[in-house]
């Protein structure tokens, strides 16, 4: 085969061409740029043979202009072996096949042509560096080959690489990592930083610079931070005092107990509410009567009901979480597509199995939404609940600091509460990702 000379091509032109092809259409700009960096251009004259079947499969080609006749050899069993390739068509994909070192087709130039060529191995390396995008490119190659030539066996091999690329199949922390990497690539983290800066900047400005009358009693951010970081805090609470951590631990322990109790009772209740019409008719009216009652309204009853204050606090923290979990779980069951249930019956499941193997996994996404809300409202309720308790907890810190006029300590308590609450809610999310690996692709497609 005459080795036509490779010439460099401007990246912008190359990106424009890649974007017009089926496999690379949806690839992000930065990745296209990296692919463009390994591309060359070559011209062929009418009558030139680009390659013969059996020759080494090294480069992948893209037609920029001209015409090329492409004929798959009979052994490939393509239903449509002949195709004339024109602008935007991609060929020479044997270079990407796992077990195919040689060309499967003959390619002859029939009208002077300008083509782009990319070394297959190099392209695979670039794609491997971004498995999610690489995966998409490979599956689009497969679709293209099916559509243009109908050769099923080859698809499996192409997908073979795609599988290798995706050797990190959804497992372990991949869903979370994927979420995080996508988050980092989006403008969200920067907007978040800007938002936080505006908030703290505003606080500083209004309280300490402008000294607005409304904020006269409010401690400034510098006062709070100084107190928080001080080895000898004026009001007795900072990151150097053991008491600070004791408050945090006590609150975490209470929220944990309340959360697990709410999950253990709320999930089954929600599942049964969604599963059995009769049970729902029996229980749901009571449930909906109790659910809107604010936590503060439960305080007297809680004190009367529980002798130990600790139990009362946990009960109060538990309530709203329990309602959120049960309600979301019920919605999850109700949102399951009836056809999954029917399919399961057809395949020989009995009612118990349908419940365990269809209803439970099918409602998991909703259950985890419920659990995230649940953890959030648990912290919410905690402050109200800790008004009841005598000793420790972040809510307790906020309440007593108010009555004893330790204003900076109130703010320290509030910020700590927010931060710890955020971390626990993130943990629930990670656990959910871990249990629902099957949603990876769904997430990648932007469903959530």
């Amino acid at each position: 085969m005459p080795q036509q000379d490779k010439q460099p091509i401007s990246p912008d032109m190359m990106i424009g061409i890649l974007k017009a092809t089926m496999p690379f259409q949806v690839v992000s700009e930065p990745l296209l740029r990296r692919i463009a960096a390994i591309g060359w251009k070559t011209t062929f004259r009418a009558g030139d043979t680009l390659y013969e079947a059996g020759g080494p499969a090294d480069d992948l080609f893209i037609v920029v202009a001209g015409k090329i006749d492409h004929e798959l050899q009979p052994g490939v069993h393509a239903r449509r072996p002949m195709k004339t390739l024109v602008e935007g068509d991609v060929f020479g994909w044997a270079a990407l096949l796992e077990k195919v070192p040689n060309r499967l087709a003959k390619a002859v130039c029939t009208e002077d042509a300008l083509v782009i060529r990319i070394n297959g191995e190099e392209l695979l390396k670039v794609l491997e560096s971004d498995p999610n995008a690489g995966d998409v490119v490979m599956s689009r190659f497969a679709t293209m080959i099916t559509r243009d030539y109908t050769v099923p066996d080859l698809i499996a091999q192409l997908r073979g690489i795609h599988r290798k690329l995706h050797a990190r199949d959804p497992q372990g922390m991949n869903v979370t990592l994927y979420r995080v990497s996508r988050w980092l690539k989006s403008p969200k983290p920067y907007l978040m930083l800007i938002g936080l800066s505006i908030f703290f900047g505003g606080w500083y400005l209004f309280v300490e610079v402008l000294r607005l009358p409304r904020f006269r009693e409010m401690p400034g951010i510098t006062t709070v931070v100084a107190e928080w970081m001080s080895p000898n805090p004026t009001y007795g609470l900072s990151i150097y005092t053991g008491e600070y951590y004791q408050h945090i631990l006590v609150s975490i322990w209470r929220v944990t107990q309340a959360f697990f109790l709410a999950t253990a009772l709320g999930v089954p209740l929600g599942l049964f509410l969604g599963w059995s019409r009769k049970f729902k008719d029996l229980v749901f009216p009571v449930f909906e009567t109790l659910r809107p009652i604010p936590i503060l309204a439960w305080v007297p009853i809680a004190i009367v009901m529980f002798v130990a204050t600790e139990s009362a606090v946990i009960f109060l923290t538990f309530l709203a979480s329990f309602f959120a979990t049960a309600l979301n779980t019920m919605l999850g069951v109700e949102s399951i597509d009836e056809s999954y249930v029917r399919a399961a019956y057809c395949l020989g499941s009995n009612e118990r199995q349908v419940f365990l193997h269809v209803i439970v996994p099918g409602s998991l996404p909703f259950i985890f939404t419920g659990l995230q809300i649940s953890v959030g409202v648990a912290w919410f309720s905690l402050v109200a609940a800790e008004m009841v308790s005598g000793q420790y907890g972040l809510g307790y810190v906020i309440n007593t600091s108010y009555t004893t006029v330790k204003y900076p300590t109130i703010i320290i308590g509030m910020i700590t509460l927010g931060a710890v609450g955020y971390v626990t809610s993130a943990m629930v999310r990670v656990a959910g990702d871990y249990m629902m690996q099957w949603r990876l692709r769904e997430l990648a497609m932007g469903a959530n």
Partner: protein
Amino acid sequence: MSENHVPRPVVASGEIAVRGVSKSYGEAHLAREVVKDCDFTIERGKLTVMIGPSGCGKSTLIRLLAGFEMPDKGSILLDGQPITGPSRDRLVVFQETALFPWLTTWDNILYGPRARGEVTPQTLEFAEFLLNKVGLREFRHKYPTQLSGGMQRRAELARAMINNPQIMILDEPFRGLDAMTKELMWEYYANLYEESGRTNFFVTTDIDEAVFLADRMLIMTNIPTQVRAVIEVDVPRPRRLADMVTSDRANAVKMEALAILHEEAMKSFSRGSKAAADFVEAYARRSAKA
């Protein structure tokens, strides 16, 4: 494993007799008859294809065959026994059936045997065999959302086949696939059927699909539906798509079926049905092309 050795447990194929079945939906004067005095037999070991215009009542018949609903009148018998509810001996792949998104391809395929507590080494071997047959070996650990539409349908077929039902019932299983993938699916499916030799009932609206797959073709009237004609498609198996295109017999069957479908649509058309008007037009275009 040799091609001929199929690790399949031996179960007799079934035969279904539909006798004078009627089904209506809605109450009193709002009632609408969807199936009316319908009679047909799904013969043992054959692939029977039911073809009829959209909305004529095919899926309704399938729900009756599956046992999820009962006929208002008439009876449905499996090997002489009346059908009383869903059962694994009639495996139904509904029009809207999908793989369980929370299970991998492999776990989806094994769902049935596991649910019934029937997983033996032979079952696993058969699962492996089917997985190969439908070309999804490399995808056993993928979740459905990671498969293309055609792959999902193939996995559904495997998930149904592994149960070795006495009868397989499929309601437009290849709907929504592009023409090319559809043709591939026909070959996969025809091959699976030819190897299993068990009773299959296949519902479609696509005349090419029907002619390619069928041993017997049931052509349905518009709503309320009945069997309008039965055509034996006596084209030898195994069939190849390329041969079917050039087969005189296949083309004759196709023309015959089209003529009946056309006539059927004309009747409803004259009764003022918009759907029928569309249908007449569509088929006029198709037969002009053929």
